């Protein structure tokens, strides 16, 4: 009888976060992502004033007493408006990316795992069709057709956003499906649905999450651009892109009124991008 084969002296070290904590910078950036999300969720509690009502003198510059970021042309508090604007932009971006992941991921997973004509004719050509359309224009068209408003904007953007994820997930799934562990599972009598959910999906998630997190910044920008064009929420609801657009005439006289929401958009997409990079570095993409 043979003895138990424990590798002597060279037990594979089980990583208990040791290697991960060695990258404090990456974790700090991911923490920043979480912080922004928290700020977005609790924006109403954090905002010192009602963002829609005038609450002070008009066009106060930033760092004025009582109004940290100043006020706009009709005396509304810019900090409050920006906070609520961040809430709208950030949470919308998360919703768009999440729904894109859900739709695109499902289609990609099925296409990659099935192969054959379902993959090449049905699902991937459908995806290509959407990829071929200029995303922003289609979103504008959809919003124009459905009427402006936050929900319609989200629907419009989500509809043009999923094909990227479908492509990525399908590629990853195809690579995984070629691995012997999937064949081994098939031989072991595992059914198709379970192979999809247990043997393929967990391997695809890291890549999909990484590319999605890198995308949040893009969605923030697209949403800001749409609302800048007047396709977002209706006034007087605060929205970063729309606020920038409306106050653009004040850029030379009171730069902060359009500037602060604009800078907020810049910071949001910057944080989303570096945070996404950090997530990519932290998640070991399995091969």
């Amino acid at each position, binding site marked *: 009888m*043979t003895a138990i*084969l424990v590798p002597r002296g060279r037990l*594979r070290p089980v990583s208990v976060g040791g290697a991960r904590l060695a990258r404090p910078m990456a974790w700090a950036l991911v923490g920043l992502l979480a912080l922004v999300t928290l700020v977005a969720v609790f924006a109403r509690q954090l905002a010192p004033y009602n963002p829609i009502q005038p609450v002070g003198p008009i066009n106060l510059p930033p760092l004025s007493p009582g109004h940290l970021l100043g006020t706009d042309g009709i005396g509304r508090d810019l900090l409050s408006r920006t906070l609520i604007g961040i809430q709208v932009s950030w949470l919308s971006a998360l919703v768009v990316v999440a729904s894109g992941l859900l739709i695109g991921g499902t289609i990609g997973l099925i296409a990659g795992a099935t192969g054959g004509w379902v993959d090449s004719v049905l699902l991937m050509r459908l995806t290509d069709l959407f990829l071929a359309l200029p995303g922003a224009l289609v979103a504008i068209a959809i919003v124009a057709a459905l009427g402006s408003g936050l929900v319609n904007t989200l629907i419009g953007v989500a509809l043009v956003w999923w094909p990227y994820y479908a492509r990525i997930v399908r590629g990853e799934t195809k690579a995984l499906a070629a691995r012997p562990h999937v064949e081994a*599972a098939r*031989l*072991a009598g*595992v059914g198709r649905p*379970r192979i999809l959910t247990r*043997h393929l999906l967990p*391997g695809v998630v890291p890549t999909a999450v990484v590319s999605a997190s890198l995308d949040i910044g893009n969605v923030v920008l697209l949403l800001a651009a749409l609302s800048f064009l007047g396709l977002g929420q209706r006034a007087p609801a605060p929205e970063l892109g729309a606020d920038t657009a409306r106050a653009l005439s004040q850029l030379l006289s009171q730069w902060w009124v359009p500037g602060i929401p604009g800078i907020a958009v810049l910071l949001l997409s910057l944080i989303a991008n570096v945070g996404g990079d950090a997530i990519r570095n932290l998640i070991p993409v399995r091969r």
Partner: protein
Amino acid sequence: MTEPVAALTDFSLSLVRNGIRNQVLERIDLQIRPGEILGLVGESGSGKSVLALSLLGLLPHTSHPQADGQVTVSGVDMVRAGPAELRRVRGEVLGAIFQDPMTSLNPTMRIGKQIGEVTHDDAESVRLLETVGVRDAQLRLRVYPHELSGGLRQRVMAAIAVGGRPGLIVADEPTTALDVTVQAQLLDLLRELRDEFGCSVLLITHDLGVADQIADRLAVLHHGELVEIGPASDVVRNPQHDYTRSLLASRLSLTMPRDERFSGAADDSEPAVRIRDLRRTFTVRRGVRWARGSYREINAVDGVDLDIAPGEALAIVGESGSGKSTLLRIVAGLEKPTSGSVTLAGTGGPQMVFQDAGSSLTPWMSVGETLGERLRPLKLSRAEVRQRVIAALAAVDLPPEVAKARPGELSGGQRQRVVLARATMIPPAVLLCDEPTSALDASLAKSVLALIRDLRARIGMTVLFVTHDLAVARLMGDRIAVMQAGRVVELGPAEQVIAEPREPYTRTLLAAVPEIVEGAVS
């Protein structure tokens, strides 16, 4: 006397792996003399490849090497010298051949250009390629690495290695990925290169037989320590150290004792596996340069008829490309035949043990979950499933705790045992083994093979065992089928095929196996 080409003096080395510092080499003293072939033998993890990297001055910075003592090549300290000097020594004194020529050749560069980086002259490149035995060398300069076979690629690597007229060639497992016949040619080549260029060779291998064939001296490495060094024939035939003895004992040879377990299909019962006129054709588009966009058909399996009796073990031997794996995959139902049929008797269906156990287990599922999946159709309760899983692990000599582990936390041997447990926890109609031990060290391979024989005896399993190793085939098979170019060229009882091969091809295969003759091994 003469200066050694390279020397390690009291050399210790530690590397960081996964955040943990490991002592990899421990006080090594080793000289490589001019013109000698020094064999360095050890199992995986013994530090032999790290030793090669130290000699080449290629220790990875990312693993923060900490070295004591010295590694000198022609007077230069290879661990501490600056990059410019290292590059000079590598260019002028060293040549390297690695295990996988596909990854060590640049896939985007033509062969000629890669050799040209050393020779700077096409005529010289052609001469070199001819020296290493590449035919039509002039034409080969224009091809890319992927257009060559494994053996040819390794020859190209050898040409690049000797191109700079090195004093020392470091060859790290140069033949492991090759067929036995190609391996024999490459070993001859190394010896010829030594004779012609007068360079030394450090041949790193896990196979004592290979080392014994061409090495002048032999060094045995175990857990980073040099346990034995001496003239090759002394080390192999009169080993002093226990570890060398155990290495020799775990070698699978063509003469090792083997137990008869199955006495042929005595009764005329239905065969467990019946393969009739099986064919599988692949269509490959030829390279644009070679033909006018034409398609070429490859008969991977070309009319195979086989009957395997219930409880019998049939070993299929062949070199890479002989179609043995395709045959196995068709029997498993993973691939469809172009024509012909496979009929399996009995219940349980086919189960397969793959070459790379690591990649045949789902990395994010625990062993318990993986094994439990086999029981899902039985609709057992949780407690029953846990019981069966533990029993299955016990059957392959694994403790119950393994059920909680992920494949990544297990060693190669343990993973192969888990795969075996999955395949046999419900007795299969036929167990298909695709080179299950070729990625394992000899001692581990031996225990896994013993386990397969054991399981087979316990549940009376039919086994179809594919291997390129004749010694393994003889050990595992009641009968041996030799495959060449998609056909079974010889089929007979194992001992008979090994002892009195009828076909010339079988004889070639047998002659190429590096055997240790007159082994005074107990």
